[in-house]
């Protein structure tokens, strides 16, 4: 990976992390009155994919959409305003945390119904194919969404029409608190979706370099019209399904597992990489990047707090 690209990947991941941590800090004040589903721990996936996307590529996301949207370029001011229910929010206050959107950035919409956005993504891709564009649609969903019939219907239609879609399964092992083992009759989804004509890959979703490299290759193939793709990214969310609490104490996740995943922080991995490939400047550059992001977040948060409430 080029150094410049590596720094962009780092910046993207860190932006998501710092935004989410800001929410963790601010949420107890009860001024953000919308259920938040944090992306902390999963940053490498959205950042690694967005590295290869332009504003003309679409993303469709789910309830856990902060990371997907920010990586795709959602303005932080309009993001925070939306979460605060303020005027100037990306969905004018009507959406909240689970309905982020910015068509100019290709963020086509987010559905809070599990798998609800998946067929909508296929419709976006149908238009890209119809207009013979070289653009693609990325559809994000969790391991719970593949329990839904509409997921399989969409995979079938996508394979049938060879739509330019990248399906991204962020497999964090749990649908809310229910583990995959209690929901799936199969162990591995990949050979199944391959039967529908999808190119597949399986990834450590916490390895930013692997994510970026594999996604880059796959996205290029999809752009060239070689067919749709499906990536299963193993990852882990640090916080609970919803809210800003660590829910390990509730017992559905093993404390040792949580700790081992936390020790595999994608941002720490990226920092380590940068220190190796750019030993002289990395430390300083990363610090500067963090300061710039923190300042951006501070301004965006301030503007959201000061903005008027969105009214009808």
């Amino acid at each position, binding site marked *: 990976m080029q150094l410049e690209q590596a720094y962009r990947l780092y910046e993207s991941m860190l932006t998501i992390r710092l935004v989410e941590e800001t929410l963790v800090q601010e949420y107890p004040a009860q001024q953000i009155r919308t259920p938040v589903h944090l992306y902390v721990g999963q940053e490498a996936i959205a950042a690694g994919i967005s590295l290869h996307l332009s504003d003309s590529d679409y993303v469709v996301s789910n309830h856990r959409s902060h990371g997907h949207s920010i990586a795709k370029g959602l303005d932080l001011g309009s993001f925070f305003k939306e979460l605060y229910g303020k005027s100037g929010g990306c969905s004018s206050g009507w959406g909240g945390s689970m309905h982020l959107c910015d068509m100019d950035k290709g963020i086509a919409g987010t559905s809070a119904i599990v798998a609800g956005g*998946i067929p909508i993504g296929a*419709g976006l891709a149908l*238009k890209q194919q119809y207009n013979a564009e070289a653009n693609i649609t990325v559809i994000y969903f969790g391991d719970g969404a593949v329990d839904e019939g*509409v997921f399989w*219907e969409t995979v079938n239609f996508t394979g049938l029409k060879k739509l330019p879609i990248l399906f991204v399964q962020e497999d964090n092992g749990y649908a809310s608190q229910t583990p995959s083992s209690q929901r799936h009759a199969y162990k591995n989804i990949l050979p199944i979706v391959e039967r529908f004509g999808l190119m597949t890959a399986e990834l450590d979703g916490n390895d930013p370099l692997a994510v970026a490299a594999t996604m880059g290759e796959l996205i290029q193939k999809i752009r060239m019209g070689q067919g749709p793709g499906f990536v299963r990214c193993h990852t882990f969310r640090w916080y609970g399904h919803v809210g800003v609490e660590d829910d390990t104490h509730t017992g559905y996740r093993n404390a040792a597992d949580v700790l081992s995943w936390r020790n595999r922080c994608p941002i720490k991995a990226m920092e380590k990489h940068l220190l190796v490939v750019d030993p002289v400047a990395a430390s300083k550059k990363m610090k500067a990047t963090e300061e710039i992001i923190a300042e951006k977040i501070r301004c965006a948060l301030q503007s959201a707090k000061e903005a008027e409430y969105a009214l009808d």
Partner: protein
Amino acid sequence: MPWTKLAADQSACRLDETCQDAGAGRMISYGEAIREAIQQSMELDPQVLVLGEGIDAAGFLYDTTAGLSERYGTRRVIETPIAEAAMTGVVTGAAVAGLRPVLMHMRNDFLLVSADQIVNHIAHWQKIFPCPNGLPLVLRAIVARGWGSGAQHSQSFHAMFAGLDGLRVVMPFTPYDVKGMFLSAVASPDPVLFLEHRWLYGDKAVVPSEPYLVPLDSATVRAIGSDITIVGMSLSNRDVQKAVETLRQEHAISAEWIDLRSIQPLDMKSIIESVQKTGRLLIAENGPVTMGIGAEISAAVTEQCWTCLKSPVKRIGWKGSTVPAGTKLEEQFYPGVREIIDEVKRIATYGK
């Protein structure tokens, strides 16, 4: 934009149902009018795509899509899997991206398989996301009846979906309206649920051959009267029409007949104006009476013109929500001309 031009041409030379010269008195059927409207919409705008299961199959969909794929190719006329939920999501995404898709559901009943997409996604999309170009999609669905079609092939969900203000719901009755309203539905920036009735496909009337628009939000007065207002919708209009005729000829009752046409939004203005004149109202629901659109009309009339009512608002419609299959059961289930006439006579003599 081709649709803006069509609207402009329309206002320059308004074609209405009574204007015979434009179509030179050409008679075509309701089904042919739909096919012509689809074809003209595709001709007008290359962003119009039609999709559906059986869309390219001979004799399916009452020939309303016959010949389209030969003419426009399978990129624009898309045969689909039987996957109502996903396909409804697909047209939603296509509309978000700027196409104007039309999705065909062979029966109203099958719409419910895609209820998540319709209710949770389509009906809210324009509210929760900025949509400068709207969400221009059309969902066609057929209401059937008879020959034992029964519980899962005869339902009409106009009232159920009318509860969603982010979705237009229309039920055209005449060949003229079905063509003009279809073109308006495709032209509309809003999603439209376009409900057709199987029994209307053969009805013939004069239909202009050029494209024209009929509004998606207005009822129309089909017979002027002074003693009672009768509201019909889709097929129930057929019985209302006969009843109005008989009431005039045999019972000296002058009934005003309103064809609702649009279910969401409801054209309450036209209904209120009529009830202010007649003081009496009967709604002939093309569906179950309970929780039907007649209930909403009745509530709105009592809210808005209570003092002009001379008798209680009455409703007539299906006996329940489960449509039976047996021949005699069907006959008992659907009200007809006789029931409308009897109800009108009771209303007319209320308190006397």
